[in-house]
C-alpha cells in the first residue's frame, strides 16, 4: 500500500506508555566515579532510580566477563558474581581487580575491557535477609551497565549538566524549582560543564591514532506533562515540554540524562511547580 495509506493506517489500537513518562520503577542512569578506572582503582557508584509511588532498594552486583553480553553476568555461576552494594543502605563500590587486564596484550590495555554491573530494583521494604528467596516477580526493574577498565592516558570522565536553560533565558541550577503555567510549552536545554566534551585519542583497527571529540546526547523524562521528542543531541540540546493541563497537577519532576557514549553519564533533576 502506498505510504500515504501507511501513514493513515499505522495507528495503534490503544496508546502505549511513552519512554519519557515516569509512572513506574525506572533505572534512568548510572554513574561510576571514576568513569573509566584503571586496574586496582576504587570505584563508587550512584544510580538515578525513580519510582513515583514507593521507595526502592537497588541491589548492585558485578562480574568479570571474558566478553560482553547483552544480558549481564552468568547467573549459573554464583561464585563469579560479587555483591557491590545496596542503595541506599550500602553505597555500592568496587575495588577493580588489579589483574583485570593481565590477560590482555600490552597494546590492548589502553582500550581495556569491561567490568559488568547488574542493577536490580526492589521495593524499599524488601527483607534483604531473604534475598536468596527472591524470584523474577519480585524484581521491579533490571538494568545492566558496563564499566570500562583501561590504562588509557585519555580515560573518560563523566559529563555534568551544570544547569537547565528554560526558554533560552531562565537558568535553573541544581536544586532549583521551576514554576510553569498550566498547558504552556517550554523549551528545556541542558547546559554542560565546560570540560564535559572531552577530546581523546583512539587507535583505529589499522593502528592509526585518531583524535576524537565526544558527541553526547540527552534523554528527558517527566512525571507529568508531555514531550513530542524526548531526546536531543549536543550541541542542539533543547526539547519542548508542555506543562500538564490537569487542574489537579501541582508538583512534578523532570529529569535530563546525558550520556557521552563512552560509559560516562550525568543527570539533572528539576522540581516543577504548576501554576495557573
Amino acid at each position, binding site marked *: *500500500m502506498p505510504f500515504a495509506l501507511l501513514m493513515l493506517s499505522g495507528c495503534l*489500537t490503544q496508546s502505549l506508555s511513552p519512554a519519557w513518562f515516569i509512572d513506574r520503577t525506572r533505572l534512568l542512569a548510572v554513574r561510576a566515579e571514576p568513569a573509566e578506572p584503571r586496574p586496582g582503582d576504587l570505584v563508587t557508584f550512584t544510580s538515578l532510580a525513580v519510582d513515583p509511588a514507593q521507595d526502592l532498594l537497588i541491589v548492585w552486583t558485578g562480574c568479570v566477563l571474558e*566478553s560482553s553480553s547483552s544480558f549481564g553476568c552468568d547467573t549459573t555461576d554464583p561464585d563469579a558474581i560479587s555483591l557491590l552494594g545496596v542503595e541506599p543502605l550500602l553505597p555500592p563500590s568496587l575495588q577493580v581487580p588489579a589483574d583485570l587486564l593481565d590477560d590482555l596484550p600490552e597494546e590492548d590495555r589502553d*582500550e581495556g575491557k569491561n567490568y559488568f554491573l547488574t542493577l536490580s530494583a526492589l521495593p524499599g521494604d524488601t527483607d534483604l535477609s531473604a534475598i536468596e528467596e527472591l524470584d523474577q516477580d519480585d524484581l521491579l526493574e533490571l*538494568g545492566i*551497565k558496563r564499566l570500562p577498565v583501561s590504562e588509557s592516558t585519555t580515560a573518560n570522565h563523566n559529563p555534568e549538566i551544570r544547569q537547565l536553560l528554560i526558554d533560552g533565558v531562565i537558568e535553573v541550577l541544581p536544586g532549583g524549582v521551576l514554576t510553569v503555567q498550566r498547558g504552556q510549552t517550554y523549551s528545556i536545554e541542558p547546559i554542560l560543564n565546560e570540560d564535559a566534551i572531552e577530546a581523546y585519542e583512539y587507535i583505529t583497527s589499522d593502528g592509526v591514532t585518531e583524535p576524537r571529540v565526544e558527541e553526547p546526547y540527552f534523554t528527558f523524562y517527566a512525571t507529568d506533562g508531555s514531550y*513530542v521528542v524526548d531526546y536531543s543531541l549536543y550541541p542542539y540540546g533543547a526539547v519542548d515540554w508542555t506543562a500538564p493541563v490537569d487542574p489537579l497537577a501541582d508538583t512534578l519532576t523532570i529529569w535530563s540524562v546525558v550520556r557521552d557514549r*563512552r560509559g560516562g553519564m550525568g543527570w539533572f533533576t528539576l522540581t516543577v511547580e504548576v501554576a495557573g
Partner: protein
Amino acid sequence: MLSPLLLALLGPAFAQDPPPAPGEAGAEQEAPPPLVKDPALINFVQAAFPQEAKDAGIEGIVLLLLEVNETGQVYNVTVLESAGWGFDEAAVEAAKQFVFSPAEDAAGPVPVALEFEYGFVLDAAATEGALPEEPVVEEVVELPVNLEGQVVEMATRRPLPEMSVAVPGTDLATLTDAEGRFALRGVPIGPAKVVIARPGWQTQEVDVVLVEGEATNVVAWVRNESYDQDAAMGVYRKDKVEVTQRTITMGEVRRIPGTFGDPIRVVQSLPGAARSPFGTGVLIIRGSNPEDSGVYVEGVRIPFIYHIGGYVSVFNPDLIGAVDYLPGNYGAQYGRTTGGVIDVKIKQEAPEQGRLVWSTDLLDSGGFYEGRLGESGNHHIGVAARRSYIDAVLPLVPRYGASGFVVRPRWADYQVRYGYTGLEDTRVTAFVFGFSDKLLVGSDDGVAQGTDQDTQDDFAVNYWSQRALVTVEHRFSDKLTAKITPAFGWDYTYLGSGQSLQITQDQWIWQVRGEAVWRPHPTIEVIPGIDWLWGGATFEFGLPFNPNSLVEYDPLAEREDYTLSGKGQARSPDVYLKANWRPFKDPERLLITPGLRVTPVRIVDELDTISFDPRVIARAKVVKGGFVKAATGIYSQPPQSFEAYHPNPDIRTELVNERAWTSTLGYEQQLTQGLSVELEVFTKDLDNLIVSNRELQSLSTDQFNTNEGVGRVKGLEFMLRQAAINQTFGWVSYTLSKSERRDYPDSEWVLFDFDQTHILTVVGGYKLPYGIEASGRFQYVTGNPYTPYAGGVYDIDQDFYSAFSSGDTNSERLPSFVALDLRIDKAWTFKQWRMNTYVDFLNAYRGVNPEFVQYNYDYTESAYIRGLPFIPSPGVNIEVFL
C-alpha cells in the same frame, strides 16, 4: 477441369473435448463445450487431385480432425475416415496450411479440434460419374434494397459483425456482415423503427423514414456492455501443460477493488497467495518467502515487480497481455526458485486502430499509446510512461504532517514495445523498459533523528532498473519451431543514511532464453531449452562501525567507519529438457510432461554448485469437462549474492542451492458455461535452507551462513469461479495451509512468519444500467504469527530495553483479518472515446485488522498496529481511439 471441392464443412469445434475416433470408448459421452466464437476458415488451400484417382475417375471424401491453436494455425491433422487413392495424403497436406480465425471461449482465444470433410470431385466435363450436380435454384424476383447501413461500436468505432438488425412489425431481419453492414429489402415506406441488438451490447433503436424509390442509409452506434470486450486480453492464462489453469480477464481485473486495476496485484486474490501486510503486494506464495518466488517478463527475471510501497506494479497494465501465475509444480522452463512464479507476458501485437490511454488517480498519472506504423501495418508499437506525485500529496495529509517525520516516495516507469509481423514464419518482438524508485525519510529541519550523529541525514533508498529484450520466434516446419530471447539488464541500488551508512550496487545481467518445440510424432513434443544467466556487480558498502566488532559486542567500544568495496561475477547456465506426451487422439485425455532442469551455479571466488531437478506433470480428462492433475518435482534456488559473499578471499562459501520437493494433486471441473470449480492439495518439503552460522566467532575466518535450515508446507486450495460473461463475474477462493521452518537440526519447528491457516477471498462484479458497474471483494484471513514479549532488561549504557520473550518464536497469532472492499465504476462512452471514473472504497467494513504488534519501550505493554482504515480512492481513465 479438376476441382477438389470443399465439401464442407466444418464440423463442430471443441474447446476442450474434441471428438474421439469412431468406436473409441466414451465417444457417446462427448459433446462440444461452449464457445462464444467458432473458428472460421479464412485461408483455404486447394489440394492436388491424386493422379491415380483422376486417371481412374475416382472421387472421395476424407474426414479429418484438425487441431487449431489459439492463433488459428493448424498444428495437427488426423485422418478420421480414409478415402484411399492418395486422397488422405493430399487432404492432410492442404489442411495443414489452412488458417482459421481463432475460436474463443468466455476467457478468450482457445485451441480447438474440429472435424473437416475434404471432398475431391472430378470436373463433370472431364469425367462421367462425378458427384451429383447441385440442384438448380429457381430464380426469384427480389425487392430492391431500401434500407441499408452499418453498425459501429461506440468509442472503438470498429464495425460490428453478427449484430441483429430487425424492423419491428415486419418479418424483416438480418445480421450484419464482417464489415458491420446490413441491407434490407422491402421495408414498408414511411416511418419505421430499426432495432439493433446482440447480447453484450446495448440494444439500439433508430428511427428512420423510408421514401419510395430511395435507399435509406443508417449508421448505428451501439455501446458495448459486456465484460467480454476485454476477453481477448486474458491474464492468468496458463498453458495447459501446467498443472493448474486459471484465467482472469482484464475486464475483471480492472474492476476488482483493492487491486487498483493492476493485473499483477490480482494474484493476491487467487488461491495459494497469502495476504501481505497493508496490502503491500509482497508475494508470499504457498508458504514461501517473498524472495523465493520469481518474477519474470517474457521469461526474463526482474528484481522487483512493484514500485516502492507495493502500490502498483512497474508495468502499465495496458501493455500486459497475460500474467502466468504458477504457485507451484511448474515445468522445467522455470528454475532458480523454490516458491511460485509470475511471468508477465507483453502483448505481441497492437490493434489496427491506434489507441491512447490516460490514467490518473490520487498517487500517479500515466499515458499509453499503441498502434501500427507503416502502410503494411506490420510494425506494432506500444509506448507507456508513468510518474507518481505522491511525494507532493503526502505532506497535505494532516496526521502525516504531525508525525515528526517526512516520507517522500516517488516512482516512475516507462515501457517501449515493438513487434514486427511482416515475415511469414518469423515473429520479432523487442521490449525495453525501466523503472526508478526513490524514498526519502527524514525529519523536519531542527528535529534530531535519533540520538546518533551518524543517522542525522535523510534516510534514502534509490534504485532503478533497465531491461532490454528481443524475442525471435521462427517456424522451421510443421514439426519444429524455436524461440530465443536475449536480454540485457542494468540495475542500480543505493541505500544510505547520513555520511557513514552507504550501500551502492551496480549490477549488470545478461540472460538468454531459448526453447525449441520439436514434434517427432503427433503425440509427442520434445522441448529442449536453455536459460543462461550471467552477471556481475560492483558494490561499495560503508558503515559507521566495523562489523567485526559485532562478534564481541561492546556498545562502549569506539566505532570507526568501515568501507568495503568489491566486485563479483556469477553465472548460471541452466539447461532443461521436457516433453509433452499425449498418447491419445484426444489430446486432452491424457497429458504427461516429464522434465529435467540442470542448474549449475558459479559465483566467482565463492562457490560452485549444481542441481538436477527432475519434474513430472500429468493431466487427465476423466469425465466431460473434468480433469485430474498431479505433479511432483524438485526445485532448486541458488544462494543470493549477499548470502554467498565473504570478504576474505581465502574463504570460499560452502553453500549449496536451497531445495524444495513439491507435489500437487488436484481436480478441476467445468460445471456450466463459465462456471468452474477446482481443488488442489499440495505439499512442499524444503531443505538446504540458508541460515546464519550460529557457530560464527570471527568474521574473517568463519562462514557467515550454512545450509542447515529445513521447512515444510502443506495445503489445500479451492476455487469456484464464474467467468466474465455478459453482466457478471466472480469467484470464491480458499486456501488452507500450514508452513513451518526449523533453522537448525536441534531447534524446534516454528511457524513461518506469514503462515496463514485460512485465506478466504470472495470477488464479484455486476454491470448495472447506464454504464455503472459495482464490484466487491471480501477477505477473511487468519492473522500472522508473532513472537510475544513480556518485559525487558534495561541497557543503561544504550538507553534501550532488550526484550524477554514470553513464548516460543511465532507462538502467538494476530487477530483475523476481515475486510470488505467495494468499487463503483461509471463509464461514459462517446463515438471516438470513452471515459471511466471510479472510486475504490477500501475497508468499507471498517475492520481493525491488526497488522503487527507494537510494544512500549520496556515491553510491558502492547497494542496492535491497525490495518488500512476506510479509504475512498478515486481515479479516472480516458481512452481515445485514433
